[in-house]
């Protein structure tokens, strides 16, 4: 079976080659998005315990002020992205449709610049200090899953980490925010990588870039020249190259066992945006309240990469990108492979939002689900080597034990199976159902 060393570039086994359409937005420099009249900041934007609000309606807030926190360990505080007045604290649906407690802030007409609290000695920070900074700044994985960063920076004592990998694959089609960050801020990315290595005591730092971003890879290679500990690894253009386990395997050849974390094989993976945010937090004292979001798709007039305040409704971004064109049929928050389809453009941007994609009816191909014809294509493309068609069949029959047997719990919902399914079976939908049900059954 093809391993990680075959072919021109390293990669994993399985996966797909979707049309990427990165060209729509990859040439667009990052520019500031308009600041909306109102931002909606969810108190829970991450995996873990929710935050309690630290402000009440009527309070004045400043840019970067902490407005939600919790004592729980697996948690990331949230900060105000604007200067303004708290209008309300209410339950607002997030991009998945779940209602979450949120702070709604009316933004001032005049927004002051963020006052950097420069720390020239950021390179001398200790591991504990870096973890503390990551936590205080509310850092989460900015690739989509939004797992609190400081938790990842605290691996079990008996599992030392020797390698930090920067996930610069951006394997999701259409999205270009990480690509732009690498082109525009390669130095800060490398600084962020060094901080991450320091935090976990790793002696190796590798930036994994897909071969469709050679311009970025070249810039990064210049940056790491002369540094023995750092390197750039060019990876095959294949989805989901940026999935944590796939990336670790492609870069190091190590396999994270089912149900285990990357620390099991001595690795830590962080996304480009997170690394840069860590640098900003350490050197400038800047919490995570804004991020780069790609607004793109055939249904967007002027595809763009925006620096967006967390809490900005996506309607504002679509408008800033010239509005929709053609026959828009799907509005997706995140990338087209793993993102969430929206019924309207009201959802606010969260820390994990990497893109807003509008697909037109020419691109969208939704068809009625057929009976599985057992072609095995889902099995061929599954990077986790599961049997997606059987998981779907078992869910339909409510045979939850068998669904687990075929690997439902090991699925990370990349969607390769549904992408290649000639019967148009929505495997991800079934697998999510299986995961929820199996978890419920196991709790009893």
């Amino acid at each position, binding site marked *: *079976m093809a391993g990680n060393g075959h072919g021109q570039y390293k990669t994993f086994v399985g996966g797909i080659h979707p*049309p990427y359409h990165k060209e729509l937005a990859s040439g667009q420099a990052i520019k500031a998005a308009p600041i909306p009249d109102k931002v909606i900041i969810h108190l829970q934007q991450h995996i873990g315990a929710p935050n309690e609000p630290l402000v009440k309606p009527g309070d004045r807030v400043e840019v970067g002020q902490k407005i939600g926190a919790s004592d729980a360990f697996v948690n990331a505080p949230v900060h105000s992205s604007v200067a303004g007045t708290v209008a309300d604290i209410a339950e607002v649906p997030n991009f998945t449709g779940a209602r979450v407690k949120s702070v709604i802030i009316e933004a001032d007409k005049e927004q002051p610049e963020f006052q950097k609290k420069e720390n020239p000695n950021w390179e001398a920070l200790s591991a504990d200090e870096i973890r503390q900074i990551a936590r205080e700044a509310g850092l989460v994985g900015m690739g989509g899953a939004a797992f609190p960063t400081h938790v990842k920076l605290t691996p079990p004592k008996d599992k030392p980490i020797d390698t930090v990998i920067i996930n610069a694959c951006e394997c999701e089609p259409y999205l270009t925010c990480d690509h732009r960050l690498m082109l525009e801020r390669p130095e800060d990315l490398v600084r962020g990588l060094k901080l991450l290595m320091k935090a976990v005591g790793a002696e190796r730092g590798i930036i994994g870039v897909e071969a469709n971003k050679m311009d970025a890879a070249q810039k990064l290679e210049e940056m790491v020249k002369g540094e023995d500990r750092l390197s750039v690894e060019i990876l095959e253009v294949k989805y989901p190259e940026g999935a944590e*386990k796939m990336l670790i*395997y492609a870069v190091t050849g190590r*396999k994270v*066992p*089912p149900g285990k974390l990357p620390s099991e094989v001595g690795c830590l993976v962080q996304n480009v945006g997170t690394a840069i945010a860590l640098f900003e937090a350490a050197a400038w004292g800047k919490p995570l309240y804004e991020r780069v979001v790609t607004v793109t798709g055939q249904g967007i007039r002027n595809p763009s990469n925006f620096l967006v305040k967390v809490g900005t409704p996506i309607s504002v971004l*679509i*408008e800033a990108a010239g509005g929709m064109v053609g026959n*828009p*049929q*799907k509005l997706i928050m*995140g990338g*087209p*492979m*793993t*993102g969430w*389809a929206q019924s*309207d*453009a009201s959802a606010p941007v969260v820390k994990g939002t990497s893109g807003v*994609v509008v*697909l037109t009816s020419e691109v969208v*191909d*939704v*068809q009625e689900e*057929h*009976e*599985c*014809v057992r*072609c*095995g*294509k889902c099995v*061929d493309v599954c*990077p*986790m*080597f599961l*049997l997606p068609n059987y998981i779907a069949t078992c869910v339909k*029959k*409510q*045979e*939850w*034990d068998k669904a*687990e*047997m075929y690997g439902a719990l*090991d699925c990370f*919902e*990349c*969607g390769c199976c*549904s*992408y*290649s*399914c*000639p019967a*148009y079976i*929505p495997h*991800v*939908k079934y697998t*999510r159902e299986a995961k929820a049900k199996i978890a419920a*059954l196991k709790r*009893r």
Partner: protein
Amino acid sequence: MSVANRLMVTVSPHLHQEGETIQRAMKDVLIALVPAALWAIVVFGFNVVYILAVSCITAALTEWVMRRIMGRKPTLFDLSAMVTAVLFAFLLPPTTPLWVVAIGVFIAVGVGKELFGGLGKNIFNPAIFGRVVLWFSPLALYTQKFVEPFYWKETGFFTPIATSISETVAGRVVYKTLAGGVTDVVSAATPLSLFKSGRMLADVVTGPTPVGATWLTPSGRPSLGALFLGLKSGCIGEVSVLALLIGAAYLLYRRTIDWRIPAGIVGSFFLLNLIAWYYPVHHLFMGGLALGAFFMATDWVTSPVSRRGKWIYAIGIGVTTFILRYWSARPEGMALAIFIWNPLAFLIDRYVAQPKFGEVKAPLFYKLPSFPESSSSPAKKEA
């Protein structure tokens, strides 16, 4: 803000591989079968076209009527009935009477596919199901008379065969044509049955073929070239290995079929023949091996989905074919081997574990996880 009126909300992923449909795959198979069909027409005359036509029309009617009766949506456009029809026809001798073709394909599509629940739920390859039922039915009489290649020079290229009447004198078979005429041609043994009975092709066929080549080596054995190109008697579809390989290459290139299955079948079969020293190369080019390995055993529905399962299934078919060809009373083994392994495909998927990514000690067999006692009863439901 011009947010579209009708935004579609579905679960991710929001992209689908362009053109990846059931219909596309079936179309690929039909395209891949064209070279073999054309060669069959050249070798066995226009009766092949009549057989294909009757098979396709009957299959379409059967599927449409059966689905209507059972209150299911019509699925003719997925072309699976057409694939079954052509493959079924390929498994017949070129002189099979047309009414037998119709009955056979009705069994294939109506019973083999639709009664099992339609495409995806059939546990047998419908074409093989239809063929095997015919074998073990009284109609077998009509499906075991083989003729020499280019027999049509005696009967006329366009003459449709309506019925066959069993042997009359010394190896000649009388056929009744559709128009009511009677014609008789030399009946021929297939190369496989010659091998089986220990005779050589020389007993039946002598002299140069109509295209100049001879299908015998000086020692009296069928020449490998004749077997490979298809200058031999046999079923419609299996006549030319070359034509089948051209189609198979297309299917492999299009990734419609998985390479593991033909590789496993041909590999294991060849290896066993080699060990037994049973004309290993000749056997590769005889009978239904190529047709079965590339077009029948690779049938999506009736082969396992896991990588490990595919190897087990393929090697199983290869070994079974060898056993049948070497020891059984009938010369042919491929179709029966696939028929035996078809239902096992489901069992293989159920029990043989595919190791997950990163699994260190991957178990050989799946183990059903157990939930706490109070778990819902449907979980206990065993299919």
